[in-house]
């Protein structure tokens, strides 16, 4: 595996992504929405609630911050769908496969092209989120809520793991569909467990360090399992002879 070769593919795909307004909009709007929208919501809640914030506010904050993880599942499915199904539709995969680049290098390149912008955008969105939340909640809570271990695990372990899972799922799905929209729709199945966790966290589930580590472990296992499926799917001969 030559990472430099994978990076050539990734850089080119990221360059192409800049031409897709829908993807650019998602990469900007989603992190901004979470990074500024939820602090605004917290401000509204605090202004209308005079009870002891330390009793209920942390649960909301953990739940809101989980949107960075959900966002990390959403963005790569769109990017990977364009990157793989888009090339399949425009028939540009065959010339690419005819170059001295291994299947693994192409797969890693396309994965990086989805992973790097997603994670960078969500990390960028987490900065205003944490600063604004701290500014708003320092008084009611009496301490700075961020940074904390839960957020660190969400941003640096769970979010990248979920992004990888979404990319792998997109690769597998891309081999079975013939248009970008279908790929995105099928890939949205990955949201189901994440939305379930989010809803549970609003009701009863505590997104503490232990829970987040368990979730990361579970998703990491899925990443490993799907890695074997996606590398078998993204195989030169499979692509040329079996992909729809």
């Amino acid at each position, binding site marked *: 595996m030559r990472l430099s*070769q994978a990076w*050539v*593919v990734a850089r*080119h795909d990221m*360059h*192409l992504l800049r*031409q897709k307004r829908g993807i650019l909009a998602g990469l900007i709007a989603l992190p901004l929405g979470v990074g500024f929208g939820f602090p605004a919501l917290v401000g509204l809640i605090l202004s209308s609630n005079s009870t002891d914030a330390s009793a209920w506010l942390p649960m909301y904050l953990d739940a809101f911050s989980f949107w960075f993880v959900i966002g990390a599942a959403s963005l790569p499915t769109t990017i990977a769908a364009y990157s793989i199904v888009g*090339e399949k539709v*425009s*028939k*540009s*995969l*065959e*010339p*690419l*496969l*005819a*170059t*001295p*680049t*291994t299947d693994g290098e192409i797969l890693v390149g396309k994965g990086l092209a989805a992973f790097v912008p997603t994670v960078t955008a969500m990390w960028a969105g987490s900065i205003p989120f944490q600063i604004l939340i701290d500014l708003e909640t320092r008084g009611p809570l009496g301490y700075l809520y961020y940074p904390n271990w839960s957020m660190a695990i969400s941003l640096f372990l769970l979010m990248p793991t979920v992004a990888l899972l979404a990319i792998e799922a997109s690769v597998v799905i891309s081999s079975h569909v013939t248009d970008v929209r279908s790929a995105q729709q099928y890939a949205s199945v990955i949201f189901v467990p994440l939305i379930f966790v989010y809803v549970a966290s609003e009701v009863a589930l505590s997104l503490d360090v232990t829970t987040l580590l368990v979730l990361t472990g579970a998703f990491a296992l899925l990443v490993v399992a799907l890695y074997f499926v996606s590398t078998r799917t993204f195989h*030169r*001969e499979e692509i*040329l*002879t079996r992909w729809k």
Partner: protein
Amino acid sequence: MIHAEGLTKQFGNLVAVDGVSLDIGEGEVFGLLGPNGAGKTTTVRMLTSLISKTRGTAEVAGCELGNEADALRLRQQIGVLPENVGLYEGSSAYDNLEYFGHLYRMDAVTLRKNIQRLLEMMGLWEKKDVPVETFSKGMKQKLAIARALVHDPVLLFLDEPTANLDPEAAKMVRDTLLDLKRERRTIFLNTHNLDEAQRVCDRVGILRTRLLTTGSPSELQSRVFGTRTVVRLANASESVAAAVRARLGGARQVELSGDQLLVEVKDPDRENPDIAEAVIAAGGRIRELSQPGPSLEDVYLKLIHGEALPS
């Protein structure tokens, strides 16, 4: 440059290519002809190590097919134009070539020079920064050929380079092929276009799952049809045909077709005067006596429709 022995590809129970053996020398332009589904694209994909072979052996540009270590080395040395050009339509012509140059790990200076040389050769240099989506089909095809050449490959595989092009665009591409031939490039050309094969290729092979025959277009023409003399008459009749048959003797084929007498000959210089004499002696009045060769299309159709190749 290419040596294949019994190259076979099977998809489940379906045999797509069956026991293809061929040799292609350096600087040669070889055309593979065959109907849809004959296995032409599968053959190219095997020879370019895009798909595996089921049986047989082949060496392409000094690399052994089926040897994983050789696959990357092979793809580094060859250029491939697939049936669908697959360009990045939103990118410029220059960016399309530059991306592939990077994939071939070319140094920046050589890449820049090659891109300029190729775009100038294809008449696209003035449009180098224009998005490819604005190009005509012919321009796109030429750009795709430039992409296959960007790393200066020793061997070029072109799969149906003029398919789906209008006559003007097809001519544009065919002229490019002739330029490449003049540069003594080794080219493996898959085509449906028999006229193109006849004009561009040194040798052709006719494939219908099995490779039915190979040879230069003129060799195939005389092997399949022999040599014929056509005599156009003012008063064609069976009696004139019989007189010619009698004069040439043996089981020589002499056919009457409308106002023409079609005579199979072995040595036209010696036999044509005899034919003329026999016709005149039988009362025939000759309007024209000629020696037309069958077209490659005639050869192709005869072989594809299952008629045995004469030894």
